[in-house]
Each structure stands twice: as C-alpha cells, then as structure tokens.
C-alpha cells in the first residue's frame, strides 16, 4: 500500500486523556488498571475504566446518541487538538472527501443492558421509551456519531471484527483512499465497559481475578478495559514523518474463540503488513498480548516464526487492560509514541516470563530510537490484523 501520513492522533484509556497521559503512564510504569467493580458487577477482577465518563455531556444536537460508548468517543475526540486537525482537513479536502472508519466490538450495549434491567424491574414486556436502538446499541452508532461530531460527509462505516476491529480500520481506510472513495480518513476505535464482555469473557474462563500479567508463567487471563482513540490519515506523507506503511489481515480458519496454536494466521497478517520490509528492520513489536494462556502462546509462535527471538516486544495490556474493539487504535497510538519517544515499554506486571515463550519480551523498559514498529491485534472468529508504522520513504 502507499504510505499514509498520520496527520494527527489521540488516545484515551484508563491511563488518562490524551497522549501526554499515556507517555507519563508508560514512563512511570503506572498501570491504569484497578481492582474495582464496574457498577454492580460482582466478578472479582481488575478493570481499566476511564474516569469521569458518567458526567460527560454530548453536544445537544447529538443527544440521541447518549450512551457510555459515545460519551467515551466524545472525550477521546476532544484531546490532543484532534477536532481542530480534522477541521483543517475538512477545509482542505471537503467534508464529503473524508471517510470515517471506526472499530468497535460492543458499541453501546451498556445502554441496552440498562434498558433490559429496567424492563425486568418493571415486569413489562417492552423496553423503555428512552432506549434508542439505532443511536446507541447498533454497531454503526459509534461511526455515525464520529462522522456527525466531526461534520464529515464521506464514506462512513463501523468495522466490527471483535478485538481486531480498530486495527482493521487502517486497512479499510487505506483501500478506500487507494480506490478513490475518499482523499483522507478518520480512523479510530471505541469500546466501553459493559456487563456483556465482563460476564462473557468470564463464561469462557478468560478473566483473571488478579491484574493481567502478559507473557507471565503464571498468567491467568485478561483484565478488561475501555478506551477510545482516533487518527487522521492523509496522503503523501513528508519523507521521514510518521506513517502507516502497511496493513495485513488474515483468518485462522480454526476456532471461533481460540487462536490457532501454531500462529500461522498471525504470521500471514504480520508478513502482509511488512510487505517488502525485511523483518529484521522492525525495532519493536507491540504484541496483542492479552495474558490468556492461549493467546500469548500462539502469538509467541507466530512472532518467533517470522522474527526469530531477538526483536524486542511487549504487550501494553498491563497498562490499559484489554480494550477489545479499541485495542487496535490504542496500540497503534502506543506504537507511534514508542517511535516519538525512543522508549520501549516493558511487559508490565510480568514477574517471571513463561519459559515456553521464546520471543524477546521486554522485562525492563529500554530507551532506544526505533524506526519501524509493528502492532498486532487478533480477535474472536480467528481474525488477525497487523499494522506497520515507520518513517515515510
């Protein structure tokens, strides 16, 4: 693919609002995860909640979109000058030439959970009048909200491929720009805390009661977090500037909720993202690294197949938790920050690396300039996506 400029980007997670909060959190090795309950959930676990979502107000004309997920989008869009950057692009390209590609796995399902709870309490057959399906629950809601909030009129779509959703937005946007459907694109991802994912992952015995410990010999599973992030992609990046250089997508064709143990699907995605770049040029890999036994083992098999055992890598789930449909954009942001800062984060909460894992998982942070960074995202349904960031040629 043709390199795409990252004209602007922003991220909001349990670490805080905006890029500076994430840099500070990474450097201080301060996790955003906390041992706390989400609302009235009873499960003993750690979660990565974004503080203050409850008191966020959407612009009045978009009040119909009010739900936790769109409030999180509103907060995330307001950081790092992103609104202004998009306004500039809109003035330059025209609102109808900027596409919107947003990843989510559960959209506004928390709103639906609340509607069902009220229905149950009232002993009625019907959902309450306040419940607006289209603007909250429907998967497209988050993409439509983003489009309307940014006053854009271009091709708009929600990509919903579980935990690879907001990595795949880079691939879809790149294709759409290449084919002439748009000249620039807002990509992003937003997923927010809800009972569906907490109890759902728990039903699969994938939620850890202790803080998630990616790549650890004693890892017990994931910690769930929420996050939102966005990037503005434009054509023809200046030589040397931060760019999205490649995207790779593949399928495991193996199982709906288990990764292929040999990592062959992930290898295909990573190889496609690299394109002609030799694997040894990659300076850091941001792992999907959910801290489930199966994910970390399969990803290790994939990484060592393609990169051997020397390329530094780590999962940043120990900071934010697994933000599911937002994981791709959060880790894209971390990847870009790693390049900017010349700082590779360690695998937080990893006490003793699993001896069965052979990849060079960082157990201590490393200060070192990095040119090329690969970011991995994998999801249910056996969907894999890798994105390569680096200097534009």
């Amino acid at each position, binding site marked *: *693919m043709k390199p795409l400029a990252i004209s602007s980007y922003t991220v909001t997670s349990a670490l805080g609002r905006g890029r500076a909060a994430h840099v500070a959190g990474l450097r201080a090795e301060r996790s955003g995860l906390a041992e706390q309950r989400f609302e009235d959930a009873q499960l003993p676990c750690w979660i990565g909640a974004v503080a203050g979502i409850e008191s966020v107000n959407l612009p009045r004309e978009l009040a119909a979109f009010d739900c936790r997920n769109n409030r999180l989008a509103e907060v995330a869009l307001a950081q790092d000058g992103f609104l202004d950057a998009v306004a500039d692009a809109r003035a330059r390209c025209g609102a*109808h030439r900027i596409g*919107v590609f947003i990843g989510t*796995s559960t959209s506004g*399902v928390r709103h*639906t*959970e609340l509607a*069902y*709870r009220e*229905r*149950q309490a009232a002993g009625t*057959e*019907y*959902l309450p009048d306040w419940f*607006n*399906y289209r603007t909250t*629950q*429907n*998967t*497209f809601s988050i*993409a*439509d909200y983003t489009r*309307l909030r940014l006053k854009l*009129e271009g*091709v*708009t*779509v*929600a*990509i*919903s*491929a*579980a935990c690879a959703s907001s990595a*795949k937005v880079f*691939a*879809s946007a790149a*294709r*759409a720009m*290449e*084919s*002439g*459907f748009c000249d620039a694109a807002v990509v992003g991802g937003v997923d927010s805390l809800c*009972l*569906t994912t907490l*109890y*759902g*992952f*728990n*039903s*699969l015995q994938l939620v850890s009661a202790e803080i998630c410990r990616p790549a650890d010999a004693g890892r017990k599973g994931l910690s769930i977090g929420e996050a939102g992030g966005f990037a503005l992609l434009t054509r023809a990046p200046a030589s040397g500037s931060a760019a999205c250089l490649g995207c790779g*997508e593949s*399928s495991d*064709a193996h199982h*709906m*909720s288990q990764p292929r143990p040999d990592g062959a*699907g992930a290898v295909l995605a990573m190889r496609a993202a690299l394109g002609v770049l030799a694997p040894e040029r990659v300076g850091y890999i941001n792992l999907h690294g959910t801290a489930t036994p199966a994910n970390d083992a399969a990803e290790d098999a994939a990484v060592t197949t393609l990169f051997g055992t020397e390329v530094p890598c780590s999962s940043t789930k120990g900071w934010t938790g697994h933000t599911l449909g937002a994981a791709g954009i959060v880790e894209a942001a971390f990847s870009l920050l790693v390049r900017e800062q010349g700082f590779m984060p360690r695998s937080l909460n990893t006490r003793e690396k699993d001896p069965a894992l052979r990849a060079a998982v960082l157990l201590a942070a490393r200060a070192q300039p990095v040119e090329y960074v690969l970011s991995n995202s994998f*999801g*249910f*349904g*056996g*969907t894999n996506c890798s994105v390569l960031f680096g200097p534009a040629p």
Partner: protein
Amino acid sequence: MNALARSSYAIKAVGLAAPGLAGWAASMPVLSGAAPYVFSAETPYAPTLLPPNERRRATAAVRQAFRAAEDAIGGAGGARDLASVFASSDADMAVLHRICAALAQEPRIISPTDFHNSVHNAASGYWSIAVQSMAVTTTLSAYDASFTAGLIEAAALARDRAGDVLLVAYDASAPPPLSVKRPLALSAGVALILGPADGATAAPFGRIALELASGGESQCALPALEGLRSGNPALRALPLLELMAARRAASVTLRASGALHVTVRWTP
C-alpha cells in the same frame, strides 16, 4: 474521483435468500418481472459447508449469511481463495436479547456459546472455518446502508488484491422486545462475487462501475418488491439485482452514509 470513474468490476456470481426469493436462479423470473412475486416464508436452513460442531452452534443470522453465500458459491469451489466482506447492520439480535435478558436477572449467567456468537464477525469467522480460508475477511455495519458500505469495501478490496471478493450482506429480524426498536420486516441475505474487470475478464453476471453521488435513492422497479427492499438492509441491493435479472444496462443509486449515495452502473 478519477480512480473511481475508471474502476469497473466483473460480477462472477450472485446469491439470494429471502422470503419468496429462494435462491438467485429461482428468483430471476421474479426479479425480471417475468413471474409474479409470491410471498413464501423461508424454510429452516442448515449450512452445507459448516462442520457439524459449528453447524450446531451457528445462529440464525449466521445461517442467513451462509444461505446467500452458499447460493452464490454453488458447487463452484474456489471459495477458499476468496477474500470476503460481511456486511450486516445488526448481526444477531436474538443473541443480544438472550445476553441482555440474562444479565438483567440473578444469577447473571451467559452461555459461552452465546458470547462467542455475539461478535459482529461471527458469520465471517464461521465462513473462514467452513471453507478453510485464511484470506482477508472483514465485517462491517452501516445500519440500513450496510449493503452499500459492503459494496464499497468489496470493490476496494478486489482492486487492492487484484482478485475476487465475496460480499455477503445479511440481516436477521429481531425477536421481541428488540423488534419494536429495530423492526426488520424479514430476514434476508444477498451475496456477490466480484473482481476487477478488464476487457478479457469473464463477467457472467455483468459488470458494475461505482460512483459517489449526493442523492436520489432508487426504489425497486417492481412495486411488489419494494416492501422487501425496505424491510431488510441486505435487500437494499434489490434495484441492482433487478437490472442483473432483466439484463438491462442502467444505473441505480443506493444510499450510503448521511447524505452520501453511490450510483451503480450495470452493463451486461
């Protein structure tokens, strides 16, 4: 816009599954106006390509997707090499209903199968397992414009890969009480296999060219089909399928997001 105007795609196969439109071959006379439309409820469907375990777990929405996709694939084979795009506004609202109803009661117990089936990309995942395809697959939603968004993604993907892409648009109607909030009149699926077209490419179902437009959504040429078109996001494709069935060179305009539309020019 120039790239758009130049791009043309060959339609290699078509699949259709809706009440009274049981498969593309059987529906052609209806869609071309040669035979009247007669409503007939869909019979239950067991996807033929799925292994037994996955077939047992597949939800109604997944079955709807497979019904259209398997109609397009026919006995042709080669599905393993196709990239795919799954376009659905709502994925499986029956699963959503079960999960949210379970979470509203104590103890909160979700079925693990319901949870893995709740992802929007369930059909795409089952499909890759069914045909043992490790190729690119993506899943998207654009509410009622999901077919149009899927067509754009499939076209871009075909151009990007210089290869054929399977597009499957599908939606299953909701159970109550969600049906009050999202009233889909019927369940339906539409599938197309499309690839980049040049002079030499075989295009047994014609060629399409896409262009962005600012309005003028087409309705069905046949009034009897209009209720179907508006009753399911996948069937927003019907005006295009009418042209293909009648083999009539013409353009239709489909709604995309917001005020944006896409004009699809079909030629034999």
